[in-house]
């Protein structure tokens, strides 16, 4: 690719989300909008090397795509004389671009890509493709599926949207806020895909964190009154601030309490705390993302595990249990209680959860139980629990960590070799 072509492509890439969002408004068809946007790129690649990149490339591309779409529609309408197409021609030729808030087109695209009618997988793929600018190949690598599988997923998602005739108008007020959970879920899922990708062999996966943060910032700018948007952004910023300390040089996970807090990204923490303040100002009561961010902020503010305000964390978990009703959250709350009031109090809560139906063989619960027993000095019981957790987990790294922990608790005991890639290698 020549330098001129590269410059044209990057100009197009910057405009693409708004361009496609605007074209969706006219075509009411995501696939068609994407095609037209690409056709506009082809025209630009023909013309711009001679004319230079225009002063307002976005408007230029929109006009080119519109004219191309209009030609095709007039042709179709002449052939078929279909009412819908004639209407579409009218829409294309009369709607003034200036009347539309620029941000609206971007928001429209986010809402369509994250439409609740689509499966979460489809939403994630479409969002990263249309708003994050990821290619099908990059998406396939990021989500560890074949390129053909990913291509299929995207085609099917676009077809679903067309067939369901989802409305392409941007909702306002309560209707807009009702759509937020489906969007936030997608953004946080993208973030977690990157956050938990420790392999490092392929940079596409960790880069998903940056993609998610960017989407979060975009949404915070577009829907500034939605408290949970700021809450999610705060949560992601604070979690991302620990990125370089949460994995050891050998690739094994490092627990929060063992992380070198001096190496956290304190500028990211500042951005996170700012976003949290915006969320808390707008929300009453606090939503699940804001509560999680507030918990993360307690850790971010503390100089050490001991200096952490565990009672505040317990209170935040109380609220989070109420909002989510999740037993996993209740387990986290038990850990916080053990830090605030001692291991005995924590163990009592964990035992109650272990007797419930939801978490009986949940590896994390067994691990937590083992660690609490260790803190109480009940080493043989603790080791037995950690061994049980190692057998239950499907994460190889985590299993190795558990065996190392067992060994640290009693170096004289002989444990079976963890055998990487053995029976448990799910």
């Amino acid at each position, binding site marked *: 690719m020549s330098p001129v072509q590269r*410059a044209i492509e990057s100009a197009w890439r910057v405009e693409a*989300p708004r361009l496609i969002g605007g074209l969706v408004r006219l075509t009411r068809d995501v696939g068609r909008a994407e095609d037209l946007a690409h056709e506009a790129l082809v025209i630009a690649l023909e013309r711009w090397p001679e004319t230079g990149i225009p002063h307002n490339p976005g408007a230029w591309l929109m006009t080119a795509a519109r004219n191309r779409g209009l030609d095709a529609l007039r042709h179709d309408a002449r052939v078929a004389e279909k009412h819908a197409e004639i209407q579409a021609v009218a829409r294309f030729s009369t709607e003034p671009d200036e009347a539309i808030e620029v941000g609206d087109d971007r928001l429209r695209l986010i809402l369509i890509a994250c439409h609740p009618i689509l499966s979460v997988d489809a939403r994630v793929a479409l969002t990263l493709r249309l708003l994050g600018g990821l290619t099908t190949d990059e998406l396939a690598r990021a989500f560890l599926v074949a390129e053909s599988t990913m291509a299929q997923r995207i085609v099917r998602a676009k077809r679903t949207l067309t067939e369901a005739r989802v409305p392409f108008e941007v909702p306002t007020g309560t209707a807009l806020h009702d759509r937020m959970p489906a969007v936030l879920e997608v953004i946080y899922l993208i973030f977690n895909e990157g956050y938990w990708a420790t392999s490092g062999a392929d940079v596409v996966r960790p880069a998903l964190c940056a993609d998610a943060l960017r989407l979060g910032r975009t949404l915070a*700018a*577009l829907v500034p009154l939605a408290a949970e948007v700021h809450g999610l952004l705060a949560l992601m910023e604070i979690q991302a601030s620990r990125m370089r300390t949460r994995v050891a040089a050998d690739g094994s996970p490092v627990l929060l309490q063992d992380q070198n807090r001096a*190496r*956290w990204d304190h500028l990211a923490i500042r951005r996170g705390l700012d976003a949290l303040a915006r969320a808390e100002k707008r929300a009453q009561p606090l939503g699940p993302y804001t509560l999680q961010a507030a918990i993360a902020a307690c850790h971010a503010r503390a100089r050490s595990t001991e200096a952490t305000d565990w009672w505040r964390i317990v209170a935040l978990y109380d609220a989070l249990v109420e909002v989510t009703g999740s037993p996993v959250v209740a387990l986290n709350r038990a850990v916080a209680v053990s830090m605030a009031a001692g291991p005995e109090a924590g163990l009592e809560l964990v035992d109650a959860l272990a007797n419930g139906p939801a978490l009986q063989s949940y590896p994390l619960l067994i691990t937590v139980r083992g660690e609490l027993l260790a803190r109480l000095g009940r080493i043989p019981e603790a080791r037995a629990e950690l061994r049980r957790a190692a057998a239950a987990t499907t994460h190889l790294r985590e299993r190795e960590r558990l065996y190392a922990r067992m060994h640290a608790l009693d170096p004289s005991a002989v444990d079976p070799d963890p055998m990487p890639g053995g029976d448990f290698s799910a």
Partner: protein
Amino acid sequence: MRVMVIVKASAESEASVMPGEELLTAMGAYNEALMQAGIMLGGEGLKPSSAAKRMIIAGDERRVVDGPFAETKELIAGFWMWEVKSMDEAVEWARRMPSPQSGHTEVDIRPIFSAEDFGEAFTPELQAQEERMREELAKRGS
């Protein structure tokens, strides 16, 4: 990647000529677009160098010089911090900036170092020291 986008000073910015209504509106719209694209991490405009002080460090010696400073073209009038995917993307966004001054303006786009860029020479000890410093700065700013 993070970049710092540095708007160089001009005779106008050094003379503290305030931007007109039109430029303010255009800059507002531009900043809004940066926010909506999700790339904006921060940015500020700087007062002219007549309000500045310069510390000159030579070995153990410290000397303070009051502004204004003569070499206008080397001064900066403002900056942004952006998080972008590539230098190409940064260039594209910088291209969309409204002309910040009536005449000629230079805008530098500088990628920001991250710890990985220092490689082996950046020892864990040095790294810890740098992080402590950064932490102190963040605390003082808050």
